[in-house]
């Protein structure tokens, strides 16, 4: 029967329902071009905007009074700021993994989620980037961390992992942004051509940078996109490895751990996919995108979560093992303190959120149940945040000399800043959904082409992606 997708086809189940090139373009483009949006969109965006305002207040007060408004002290010099930084950076990773690695691996199922995930990466890194800047005592001289020729005759200290961070994060952000934008160019062109109003034509026109769908363009595009993919692939591993070195390089029990880099990367991807799910599931429903974001996508993402989750769990176990095996009383005390110390409940909670509950993903039923999947992704997000809390706080609050042990209690400003960034993130995501095609139109059409060879477009339409109306000179 025409349009029916044979199960044997590669990438089967990645697009459901009857779809033509036209309808794909129509369905995705419409979200951007149409002026009418679900109420939920307005509601969420408004609430998120409120949180963004809170963020602005929190930051202003911080700059006015200093980091003393937070709960940090001696000995806990790092609190929420660093916890959130690591958490956000981690979340970003899924995007890069999906868009770069899966691309190189020719994983077709990435097609419908990569744009989405990349956007997530960018906004997550934005949130993450805020914290290192704000958490320093004197943000106005934070630029000293950059190797700028200056006439103090002084340079950053390249032995410090914090400097590596600066490079890692900035590179990461730049590459992700380029990658994302490059991917968007052909779609901007499509939108330019479909836009009704003059204004949107111009805006999309500028963004499309004179894209003409010429074979030459496509050729250049493919080359560039592949290069960028290659470029950002190592970043998936490098960025969070370096972030983990912020801790591993130190000598504090609980930080000084060789296992950190791999285990941080796994954790990052873990939380990243969790966040993708957290976002995809509602938006997919909101914009009726079930045809493109199918159960298969959710299923596969769930499987990746399960895998990375197991790596993380292994990390926990190895940490405990090495501590006990080390016969080092400080390491051993740390483990005991994590389980039974004043912050024990956090550690147990994190084991449950990251280790125990996700095991439910073994069952296909759970993976097929959108609601459960959504809840689960939320739980993992929480769990991963807790993990960073445990690493930062419980390691610091009781280190070598009992005389200088202390406790850390976050203040309202700690929370304001944290929730503020969550608001900012949501806000940006929803703007993205509104103003940029959340799924790559041309790649979907390409996918459609590959998945359904028998498919026939309406008469007259060429088989190659739809021709632009622009006249080539």
């Amino acid at each position, binding site marked *: 029967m025409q349009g029916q997708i044979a199960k044997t086809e590669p990438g089967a189940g990645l697009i459901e329902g009857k779809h033509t090139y036209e309808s794909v373009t129509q369905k995705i483009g419409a979200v951007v071009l149409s002026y009418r949006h679900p109420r939920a969109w307005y509601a969420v965006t408004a609430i998120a905007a409120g949180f963004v305002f809170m963020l602005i207040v929190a930051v202003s007060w911080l700059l006015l009074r200093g980091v003393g408004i937070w709960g940090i002290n001696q000995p806990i010099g*790092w609190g929420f700021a660093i916890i959130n930084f690591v958490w956000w950076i981690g979340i970003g990773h899924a995007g890069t993994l999906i868009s770069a690695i899966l691309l190189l691996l020719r994983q077709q199922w990435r097609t419908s989620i990569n744009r989405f995930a990349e956007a997530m990466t960018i906004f997550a890194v934005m949130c993450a980037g805020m914290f290192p800047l704000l958490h320093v005592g*004197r943000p106005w*001289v934070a630029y*000293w961390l950059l190797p700028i020729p200056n006439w103090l005759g002084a340079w950053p200290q390249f032995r410090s992992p914090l400097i590596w961070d600066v490079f890692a994060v900035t590179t990461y952000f730049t590459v992700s942004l380029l990658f994302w934008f490059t991917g968007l160019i052909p779609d901007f062109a499509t939108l330019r051509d479909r836009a009704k109003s003059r204004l949107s034509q111009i805006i999309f026109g500028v963004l499309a940078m004179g894209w003409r769908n010429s074979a030459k363009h496509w050729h250049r595009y493919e080359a560039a996109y592949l290069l960028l993919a290659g470029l950002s692939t190592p970043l998936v591993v490098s960025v969070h490895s370096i972030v983990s070195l912020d801790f591993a390089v130190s000598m504090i029990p609980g930080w000084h751990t060789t296992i950190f880099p791999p285990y941080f990367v796994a954790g990052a991807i873990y939380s990243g996919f969790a966040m993708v799910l957290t976002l995809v599931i509602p938006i997919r429903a909101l914009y009726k995108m079930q045809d493109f974001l199918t159960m298969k996508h959710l299923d596969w993402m769930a499987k990746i979560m399960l895998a990375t989750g197991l790596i993380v769990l292994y990390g926990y176990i190895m940490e405990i093992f090495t501590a006990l095996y080390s016969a080092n009383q400080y390491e051993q005390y740390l483990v005991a303190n994590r389980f039974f110390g004043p912050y024990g409940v956090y550690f147990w909670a994190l084991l449950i959120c990251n280790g125990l509950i996700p095991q439910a993903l073994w069952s296909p039923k759970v993976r097929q149940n959108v609601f459960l999947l959504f809840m689960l992704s939320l739980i993992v997000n929480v769990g991963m945040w807790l993990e960073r809390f445990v690493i930062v706080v419980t390691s610091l609050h009781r280190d*070598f000399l*009992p*005389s200088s042990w*202390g*406790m850390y209690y976050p203040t309202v400003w700690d929370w304001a800043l944290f929730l503020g960034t969550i608001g900012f993130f949501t806000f940006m995501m929803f703007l993205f959904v509104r103003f940029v095609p959340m799924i790559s139109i041309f790649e979907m059409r390409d996918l459609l082409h590959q998945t359904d060879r028998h498919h026939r477009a309406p008469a007259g339409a060429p088989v190659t992606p739809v021709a632009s109306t622009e006249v080539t000179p």
Partner: protein
Amino acid sequence: MDKKQRQPLDLEEIRRRLSQARGPQYWRSLEEIADSEEFQQILEKEFPRQSSPLGAFLHRRQFLRLMGASLALAGLTSCRPLSQRKIVPQVQQPEEVIPGKPLYYASAFPMGGYARGVLVESHEGRPTKVEGNARHPATPGANGVLSMQSPTQMNPDGTPRHLGATDVFMQASILTLYDPDRSQSPMYQGQLSSWTEFNAALAAEMAKQGAVRGAGLRILTENVTSPTLAALMEELLKKFPQAKWHQYEPVNFDNSREGAKVAFGEPVNTVYRFDRADVILSLDSDFLYSGPASVRYAHDFASRRRVRKDTTSMNRLYVVESTPTVTGSVADHRLPLRPSQVAQFAVALTGALGIPVSAPDLPQEQRRWVNAIVRDLQAHRGRCVVTVGEMHHPAVHALVHAINERLGNVGQTVLYTAPVEARPVNHAGSLAELVQDMTEGKVEALLILGGNPAYNAPADTQFARLLKELTQRNGFTVHLSLYEDETSAVCQWHIPEAHYLESWGDIRAFDGTVSIIQPLIEPLYPSRSAYELVDAMLGRQRNSYDIVRAYWSRRLGNANFTKTWRKVLHDGVVANTALPPRTVKVRTEAVVGAAGNMPRPAEGLELVFAPDPTVWDGRFANNGWLQELPKPLTHLTWDNALLVSPNTAQKLGMRMDTGGLANMVDVVEVRYRGEKLRAPIWIMPGQPDDCVTLSLGYGRTRAGKVGTGIGCNAYALRFSDALWTASGVQVVKAGERYPLAGTQQHHSMQGRKLFHSGTLEEFRKDPEHFVEREIHGELPSMYPDFQWDGQRWAMVIDTSLCIGCNACVTACQAENNIPIVGKEQVASGREMHWMRIDRYYEGGLDNPDTHLQPVTCMHCEKAPCEPVCPVGATVHSHEGLNQMVYNRCVGTRYCSNNCPYKVRRFNFLKYNDPKEPVLQLLNNPDVTVRGRGVMEKCSYCVQRINAARIAAKKLGRELQDGEVMTACQTACPTQAIVFGDMADAGSLVAQLKAQPHHYGLLEEWNTRPRTTYLAKVRNPNPELEGA
């Protein structure tokens, strides 16, 4: 109104301005006015001394510092000054002043009427730091008390070669000088008044009193040892025969005095020579920390405890006490007993020595103690000391005199001299007498010179009420004091008193030695000294310089007086004024009799009143340094608490939650003789059961911005007949909880080998294995060893000598411009002290061993903080300093996280606030004032190192050992802290590092700390071991 008409017009103007200036800005506006042209003129009219050339001098200095200070913070962030700064040279340069080089002046710090000798560092006439005067008997230096003959040696950088030790009060006294809350103008019934008005009023009153030969005139002073003031008082009493002079000191020596009377029939002053004692028994006497001779005694005591490879002998200290004290914490044997039990213990001891007292039957354990101690004491006849705390009944003091005589200690380790006080009176009695006269309405004029009786008089005297009534009856009541306090509030007149660094005076030390109090700075505000006030009462207008000088020109004779006078001022002490030892005989039967009828304690708890270790009797309540100073043993700040033993707490069901940020403790109501007081509790290991201790000095209602309304006022429970101990006290839970801010939340070592201690026997047997080490020899490092042929600075701290007196901590604060942060910040773990004294308990809760470990920056050779700083703000110097460069610091706090010793301190907020310009005068100009968001830490007093190095280099030679002394080192009464160049094999620090019981904290982590320790050696009595 009509009163105002009589004022000169210009003063009217000042009045108007002052009346506009109120609230927190108040003093500042006054300052502005004081600086204004017309006010200067008035002052000059009223007080000729103001018009000395120094007038301009002071003015200029303030100006300069304010400019400097206000830019100090901006300076940290930007390299360009925000405004055009000025250079303001003097008009006439005093020839001894070299701009940029400090000068040192000898003076004396008065406390409770007794002197501690000081050398005050002065930068362009601005006192910034107090050091001890090594020539003064109360403040010996590393080489003991410097003899009069030995000339003063100076280091190349112009600092004295020999500095004396200090205590916390001397160090902190400089902050009081610059306290913005000090009163700055006479007050008449709470309204700003003027000196002209007061002078008129005083003259009138004196005339009135003169008519009745002073029948209604009373003068209340603190304890007076000053010869000059005494002479003035005598003159006054001659002029007004009917007038009376009363003395009251809340922390007085009545019991000792009465005890001496019982034993010898006359009041004598007791001086101990702990440097000659092999065995010491202290019955509730905290001789290492409190009292006018504490620094000297600590020094002497320590001089017999320096255990080294080749000197393996040390003294032995027994302490029987009712409250854990500094002295108790270093005891070789400590026995916690209730005050009444301590008294009985003393009686039993006397009996055991063969003096016919009716010896009580003690519990077996105490008997064991008595026997052991007696044997030990008798084995060291003439080479032991028994000393008793002021809190005990005169009879106990008498007993102790008898004991010392029986042990042949008199003339050897225990010396008796004539009383040091100008007029030895029973303070409680003297005050009672005054109160009597006040109630009977005999008093018309009462001049209170210093002190704060309305706050610290015993509850039963009702002094505050009586004084208020007298004032309301329009009696002429005058209060001369630094602050406008509780007493000023109920007096007709308040007169600002000159700080001891602002005015001339003289005073005696614990052994009678006289010092001249020499001012370092013109009075910051128009104020008077007691001398000047009494002089004015005699109808004269001399300033304190003329008064004191005149008196001494009489005393020292006019033959080349100027020369002698200069020497006296230079030395800080008047030669040969120490009181000669006297031979006195104990009247045994009287002693026995007194011992017989000692009052028996009533049922219920016993309450001990102790002077507070930091704010003392309340006089330092507004001193931020002392408020924030962790109290020895409890490590509490900004509060006093009722100390209860673990068992008692359990019995009364009281809880204390530590380990969090603030300690949440139960609040209790203490009931005694119908008086009630709410107080937070503190469960104190080593506190005897059924005995609670509350420190004086808190619950001030008019102390100032810092000290008002914190803690609870123990004086509310204090009665004339029970100044120190009260029995039959009830303690009931009040049902609420209260946060106490402490600087150390965990008191056990968690089984970690952080502190090493052992017995002298063990040391003699096998010094090499005295310290059970985690590592032997040096661990390998991945970095090559650092080659350097210059100095390699290092510090060794002998934990056998540290008594935890905190002098070092305060000295560090004063030297390095360390801010105070307030109770809330301390409670959130943000105290800024560069140096702390960690205290660990070992053994059971009821009577644990206390281990004290001063912790500074370790200046690790492989410092973990250095590689993690992203901007290289903390790096190593060639001489091995771990340098912290504030102006480079971005504030990531990674260094602090990675510091295993947690010695780094971060300016979480803007702690150094230039809003109080007068406080900027206090800053040490050689140390940067740190701004917000910057890390800081112990620098080994690098400013002193640099000064010394530059001086040596100019002479073209290398630094010599002892030319650089850190602030903590000079302050330490026991010389527990030794700093120097470890590359120089001859240096003391190098020798100490070669000692067998030398170890590094966490040395197994291979940080190669430069600050290291000598393990603590105890000298227990085998007989009592395993008790």
